[in-house]
């Protein structure tokens, strides 16, 4: 372990032996961290490792039970987020919260616009100040443009500009790339590099390991609330990092088994939803994992929604194990053996303030019935069975799902659907925003399901996941299927070429 402090400048912000407990849970134990000006520092760890608590401690939301926060070497106590902000610490969250109807400039200077006589807002000065911020970041965004319609990447850039306007010297970026496309990530990284060159310290959190290697100089790893290491990222491999995060060697991230595909289980024929997707036809066989790749907005999720019956289709037909599905009727799709694990687990997959037990139970309300009433015993054992099988980490099965970490919530969604005993399983971004250990578990599960004869259609924006797990890759571009690539020929290049419309199908 090396400390640049031995030779280089002093850390702008440091945590010394910070501990924080919530009741009996020790969220942080003697964690130390130093952030230097001009570095991008990765914070690595699985869900539940204590990253969020650490960020909230830095941001003044939590006050540590023990340990010190040092700003420019001086101990400070933050009594609230305002203190941290005044000290030059800004947090950029995954999903920015801008006022959609205000302009970019108004969003940045909300509540503290430059004033002219009589308290009138000085629009010219606001505009100029915003323009200056954008130039510092090296981006071109019109200050007078309303925030509505900005991509998430641009919204984050506005948040960064806002942080700079507060003279922020430390930027904490909490999974900023989770909802971004490849080119947006590149754009955001450009801004981060500019900030670094200007001497800012950036604490960067991401579940995508390759991003840490691309943008960060040092990495601090947490596991179960404890500090594991702080070290330069140069010379480390992804396996090294994973080992520190997980505490053991991860057997394999993509444990794909070879399966001989069986009969056609899901057959989609000339499916069209006007203005959304057109003439989509494909089959998925029992035992097969078919990847559905494409850029965000290519229509992948929309096809899945229509197949399952959430949205109606305008033309075409869908068969599951030879049964034609009714247009726009999820209940008949379920009866035919289809399950859909939706992309947004909070909005679509779960009822957040319902218990784990009842969330899993929701898909079984038709089956766990005795004399017309919900058979609570059967419901509980069904839910427990699947929660245990999927190794969901929870205190009590009657706890609400919003008490669980993201990875465990995703497991509850999977449990909810696997409990229906599906023969065709559509999973939409099954591992988005979950840690690498859980990700490997989900992949193993999908592989086992396929081995048991389940037909799996996997939508993912994570290209390595598609390449690692799929027997075949379907690619969509602007609402059409543009390519079908067998596993042997699927590479990042061939898939991306089809996804961007550059390849002959």
């Amino acid at each position, binding site marked *: 372990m090396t400390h640049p402090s031995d030779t280089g400048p002093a850390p702008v912000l440091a945590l010394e032996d910070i501990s924080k407990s*919530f009741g009996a849970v020790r969220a942080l134990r003697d964690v130390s961290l130093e952030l230097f000006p001009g570095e991008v520092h990765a914070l690595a760890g699985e869900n539940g490792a204590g990253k969020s608590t650490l960020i909230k401690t830095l941001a003044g939301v939590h006050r540590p039970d023990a340990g010190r926060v040092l700003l420019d070497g001086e101990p400070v106590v933050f009594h609230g987020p305002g203190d941290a902000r005044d000290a030059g610490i800004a947090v950029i969250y995954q999903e920015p919260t801008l006022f959609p109807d205000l302009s970019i400039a108004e969003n940045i200077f909300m509540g503290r616009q430059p004033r002219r006589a009589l308290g009138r807002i000085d629009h010219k000065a606001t505009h100029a100040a915003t323009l200056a911020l954008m130039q510092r970041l090296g981006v071109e965004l019109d200050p007078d443009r309303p925030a509505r319609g900005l991509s998430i990447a641009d919204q984050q850039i506005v948040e960064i500009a806002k942080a700079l306007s507060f003279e922020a010297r430390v930027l904490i970026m909490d999974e900023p790339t989770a909802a971004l496309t490849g080119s947006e990530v590149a754009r955001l990284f450009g801004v981060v590099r500019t900030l670094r060159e200007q001497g800012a310290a950036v604490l960067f959190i991401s579940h995508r390991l390759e991003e840490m290697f691309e943008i960060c100089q040092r990495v601090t790893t947490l596991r179960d609330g404890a500090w594991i290491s702080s070290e330069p990222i140069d010379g480390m491999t992804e396996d090294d990092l994973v080992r520190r995060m997980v505490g053991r060697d991860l057997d394999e991230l993509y444990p794909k088994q070879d399966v001989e595909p069986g009969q056609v289980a899901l057959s989609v024929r000339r499916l069209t939803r006007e203005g959304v997707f057109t003439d989509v036809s494909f089959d998925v066989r029992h035992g097969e994992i078919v990847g559905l790749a494409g850029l965000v907005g290519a229509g992948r999720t929309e096809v899945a929604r229509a197949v399952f019956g959430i949205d109606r289709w305008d033309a075409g037909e869908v068969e599951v194990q030879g049964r034609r599905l009714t247009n726009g009727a999820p209940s008949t799709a379920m009866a035919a053996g289809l399950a859909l694990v939706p992309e947004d687990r909070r909005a679509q997959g779960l*009822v957040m303030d319902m218990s784990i037990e009842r969330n899993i139970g*929701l898909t079984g309300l038709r089956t766990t019935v005795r004399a017309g*009433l*919900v058979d609570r015993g059967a419901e509980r054992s069904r839910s427990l069975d699947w929660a245990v099988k999927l190794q969901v980490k929870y205190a009590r099965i009657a706890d609400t799902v919003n008490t669980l970490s993201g990875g465990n919530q995703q497991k509850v969604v999977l449990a909810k659907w696997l409990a229906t005993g599906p023969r065709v399983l559509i999973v939409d971004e099954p591992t988005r925003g979950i840690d690498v250990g859980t990700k490997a578990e989900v992949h193993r599960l999908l592989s086992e399901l396929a081995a048991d004869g389940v037909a799996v259609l996997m939508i993912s924006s994570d290209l390595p996941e598609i390449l690692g797990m799929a027997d075949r890759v379907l690619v969509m571009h602007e609402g059409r299927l543009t390519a079908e690539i067998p596993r042997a020929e699927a590479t990042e290049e061939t898939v991306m070429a089809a996804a961007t419309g550059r390849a002959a199908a």
Partner: protein
Amino acid sequence: MPESLTRAVRWDTVVGALLVVLLLLSFSTVDGFGNALNLSFLIGNTLPIALIALPMTLLVVSGEIDLSVASTAGLSGAVMGKLWNDGMAIETIIPLCLLLGVVCGLVNGLLVTRLGLPSLAVTIGTLAAYRGIAQIVLGSDAVTDFPSQYLDFAAGRIGNTFIPQALLPFVVLLAIAVVVLHATPFGRSLFAIGANEEAARFAGIRVRRHKLILFTVTGLMASLTGIFWALHYASARYDNATGLELSIVAAVLLGGIDFDGGRGTLGGAIAGVFLLGALQNVMSLLNVSAQSQIVVTGVLLVISVLGPRVARQISVARAARSAG
């Protein structure tokens, strides 16, 4: 954290306790509260609210509301009076009026589920419309000469007790509603719909059908209440039950049914109904003016939206302190 402690701040328990306290206090300090006649008045006057509160609870749990219920009740009573004046047999009139309630509810339900309109707006509209139709049907007449055995049933008591005869059918309906909401797949689905409609849809729950059924049943119960009202007070007028929706909604929310849907128990709602009913009864005994009573109802409505939230925040804070 022991479960009993988090339970202690559950709002429906609080309301139940408040009801008990109010009753004990009224028995011991309010003159005339405890006599049989007053108690039968209390229950009889509360029954219309209680009857409609049953389906209203289910509606609010599923994230919807029906403000047209009092107008539907008024319309049913008016149609009943009109047809009775025209010489139709009461045995024919009552099923027809119930059917009318079904139609009223169906209209609300179709406007909400098919056109996707917000139920608050739709039912404010039908609140005015149904009441207007009632006035067109009956004008300013008051029909009072219904057959005596019906009037006796609606106003009578069991033997020499203070218990109104009509309480028994209500208890049966209450039991059915409790089972439907808290023990059937249908009821479980309503909680899911109210808490997260999209997730319910993704779980294969037929959201629109559930809501349509609820609105229809609510219309049916409203017309049943309208019939009961006209017989209980031996008066069918177009303005029967005017403003009753305020008491119903206030009572249901007071009982801890979350206005945003997804939360609450029927026990709490019914405790809320009788808390409000007892309060109104006590205020009348204490000669509080009708206007002031409406003010109290309004204030209760505001408190009832705040109370459960405060209670929940306390339990969440306690859970957070214990669990982290």
